């Protein structure tokens, strides 16, 4: 009996991500959740600009590529014209927290009934490791070579906390991919976020901490350890809003 095999919601295409990048794990979690909810026929994914720009090749459902940062706006359009569809947005930190901040905040403030999967690896991966809005204090990047200095570069932006100040979002959670336990918890959060949308509850946002061994200049296993020990200090895991339980504002 097969205990584990690749979900049919993912295509046979080989992922282009670097070795040890946990983007692939999140792809699988999203795909498995959609399959388990039985909504693959209704599903429309929005691919971002960034490392996950080729996400449309990997998901076995309708996909739409959005301009840099504009994925929540595209998702809003698709969801409003096709209210029966299940629209998920898959964005990285450069896309969502930097150039797409306006779209992100306003989609959340409107409480659009969409699901956002936010991949936070605290660096610009695809363009070669520049400092992102989420880069940790002291973390090195090509545009802050002696480490991020708050006096020059400011502080990292915590998106979950920021969105949790708004009234409209229904569900906001931050999860991680540092080990098996956290990956299983991430799956639960992603599935819940998609389920919320299917039930018409409203804006659901899941931030997933992901490693970037290439641009952090670490081995894959070291990178996961760094994520568990350092990234979670700046980005604490947990539920920031869950209206079904009355948590958060």
């Amino acid at each position: 009996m097969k205990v584990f095999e690749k979900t049919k919601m993912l295509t046979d295409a080989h992922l282009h991500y670097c070795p040890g990048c946990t983007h692939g794990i999140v792809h699988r979690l999203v795909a498995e959740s959609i399959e388990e909810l039985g909504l693959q026929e209704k599903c429309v994914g929005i691919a971002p600009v960034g490392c996950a720009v080729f996400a449309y090749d990997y998901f076995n459902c309708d996909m739409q590529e959005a301009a840099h940062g504009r994925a929540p706006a595209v998702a809003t359009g698709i969801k409003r014209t096709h209210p029966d569809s299940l629209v998920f947005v898959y964005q990285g930190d450069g896309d969502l927290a930097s150039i797409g901040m306006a779209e992100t905040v306003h989609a959340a403030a409107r409480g659009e009934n969409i699901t956002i999967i936010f991949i936070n690896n605290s660096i610009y991966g695809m363009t070669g490791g520049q400092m992102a809005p989420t880069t940790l204090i002291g973390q090195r990047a090509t545009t802050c070579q002696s480490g991020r200095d708050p006096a020059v570069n400011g502080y990292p932006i915590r998106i979950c906390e920021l969105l949790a100040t708004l009234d409209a979002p229904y569900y906001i959670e931050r999860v991680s991919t540092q080990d098996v336990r956290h990956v299983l918890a991430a799956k639960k959060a992603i599935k819940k976020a998609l389920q919320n949308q299917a039930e018409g509850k409203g804006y659901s946002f899941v931030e997933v901490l992901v490693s970037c061994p290439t641009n952090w200049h670490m081995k894959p296993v070291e990178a996961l350890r760094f994520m568990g020990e350092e990234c979670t200090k700046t980005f604490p895991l947990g539920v920031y809003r869950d209206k079904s339980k009355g948590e958060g504002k």
Partner: protein
Amino acid sequence: MASITIDETVCKGCGLCAEACPKKVIALSEHRMNANGYFVAEKVAPQNCIGCAFCAIMCPDCAITVEK
């Protein structure tokens, strides 16, 4: 008996499966590469596999199938 199958064509040799395995069933090969030039993950102690699927859960490339 529990067993795993590793698709070596998609394996990138990141070693997250070997790290996750509680029974040390998997290790990275020191000699064998796939067509992409990665030293692939291979079974070194298949008899110890308990079918927990931790390796498959951590594999970013869905290279592992687990049977029980």
